[in-house]
């Protein structure tokens, strides 16, 4: 997307349409006996109006490029998802080690020694939470 204002309007209208069309599946009811679909339908109609207004507005304002770098967000999200999956399949200590080593790909310079130190400290904190505060963590 080259135009941030336009992209904003499109995203907002998209959200409004997704929720608005979804609301039609639920009973709307009457005004004196409102169903579960009425309120989301109302809200998403207003949001659609605002989204369209944003799109219209974007034609009158100066274009701004969207600065979107994929690398860091992908690294962070995959380290989180990896943490979740490994915690479920193996245990949380392995999850924490993966989290640190994967997330550190976003930092430069990449140093295995520093990663190991950070992972060690974080595991110690997790153990302290588990033993001292009684937070239930599937550590091992």
């Amino acid at each position, binding site marked *: 997307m080259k135009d*941030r204002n336009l992209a*904003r309007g499109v*995203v907002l209208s998209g*959200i*409004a349409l997704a*929720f608005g069309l*979804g*609301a039609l599946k*639920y*009973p709307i009811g*009457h*005004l*004196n*006996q*409102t169903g*579960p679909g009425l*309120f*989301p339908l109302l*809200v*998403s109609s*207003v*949001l659609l109006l*605002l*989204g369209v207004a*944003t799109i219209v*507005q974007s034609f*009158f304002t100066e274009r701004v490029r*969207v*600065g979107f770098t994929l690398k*860091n*967000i992908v690294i*962070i*999200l995959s*380290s*989180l*998802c990896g*943490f*979740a999956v490994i*915690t*479920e399949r193996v245990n949380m200590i392995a999850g*924490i080690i993966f*989290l*640190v080593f994967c*997330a*550190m790909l*976003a*930092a*430069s310079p990449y140093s295995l020694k*520093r990663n190991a130190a*950070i992972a060690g*400290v*974080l595991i110690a*904190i*997790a153990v302290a*939470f588990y033993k001292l*505060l*009684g*937070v*239930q*963590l599937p550590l091992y």
Partner: protein
Amino acid sequence: MEILHNLAFGFEHALTLQNLMFCAVGCVVGTLVGLLPGLGPLATISLLLPLTYSIPVGGALIMLAGIYYGAQYGDSVSAITMKIPHASSIVACIDGYQLTLKGRTGLALFTAGVSSFIGGTVAIIVLAALAPALGKVALMFGPADYTALMLFGFVCVSFVTTGSLLNGLSMCLVGVLLGQIGTDVNSGVTRYTLGLPFLADGIGVVSIALGCFGIAEITKNLDSGEDRSPFRGKINLIPTWHEFKRIIPSALRGSVVGSALGILPGGGPVIAQFAAYALDKKVSKHKKEIGTGAIEGVAGQAAADEAAARTSFIPLMSIGIPENAVMALMMAAFIIKGIQPGPNMIAGHPDLFWGLVASMWIGNCFLLLLNVPLVRYWLSVFKIPYAVLFPAILFFCCIGTYSINNNVEDVLITAGFGLIGYIFLRLELDPAPLMLGFILGPMLEENFRRSLLLSRGDLSIFVTQPISATLLTLIAIFMFWQMLSFFLRAGKNLVVPVAIEQ
């Protein structure tokens, strides 16, 4: 006299060893969070929410409140010394950083500390005097009035936090729609769950807050990739008597401005700082110096900042409607602890209410102690490189979301909201109104449906009730003014090219 009696009652509760400890922990964590990049008060409060499950109600609320006003303070320290505000202390960067450039960092920090103390003290008096009275007014509110009040809050917050009514209001509504996910309380129908069983209870507030504010912020900081240079200057804290005298009037002005603006819907520390700074620029004896490193430029805004952070509790605790995103999160914390904030809270749980008010003053003393004599130790926090910090923040986000329900699916939801939050950030859509919309959404729907039930489906109930009619008129005027100003601007832009073509 009654206030004194109530405050004494509050101090009795706040001064127990346990509550003092929670207050101290809150202030320390808050200051730390204010100093460090990547975690604002919103993310921290949501992070610590799961850990407060095992703490008694009073202590939990005292701690969370301490984090909020502590973070406001810590933020101003990093703004003064390094010109990097994280949450809200934009104004402290102006004169505070100018003073640092002049080599007077110590004076700026001392001024900010003392003014914050004055601001906080004034605000607590306002809070103690006004909240119970406002609670009585709130009893006159019907469901239609509550609906209108929430909409009014949306409009004010949108305008104040984002500067653009269109963007802010859209984000509020996105938040309301996200709040629709889960089971409808009136009919039992599950909405927008996509057939996933863990969505039947709705999305957790912690997941949204950590995704939009924690993870998205971290990624943004990594994208910008700048390394901060730690502060290495000298700090000489003790001001001369002449300088000290200049702090007081400005701090008092700031306290009054901050207390007043903290109460209004959409208000809060940010707008209070700007207003106090503008006022000082107009009426201060040394107004010519402001902007180039004047004591008044630091004192007024610091007092307003702290005052507003405390008085913004008034609408939450007396009417039951949070006025900004942080207060919305505090409301979620109250509800998790089984307390419904609102007109009945002061009468129903006087120990909690007055204990919290008293703890705010105790927190004031802690902050003064932490930040004035000990400030140079805090500044060493900046020597930690961001590459060490962000995995730790990610780790706390994971542990925080996991421990709510002992469920890894919550971590995945948080990651999802991290992506959504990042897209919003890149599109310059502020997630703070989304948070408010998300927490108020279910309340808004309930009050809206209840008003229609009371009026037997007649929409005119919203304009025949005096309170709701007034609020809706204000909203309409505001919207009309916004549209008018946009068309006038757009009109000018269109006229110019036409004129050139001719």
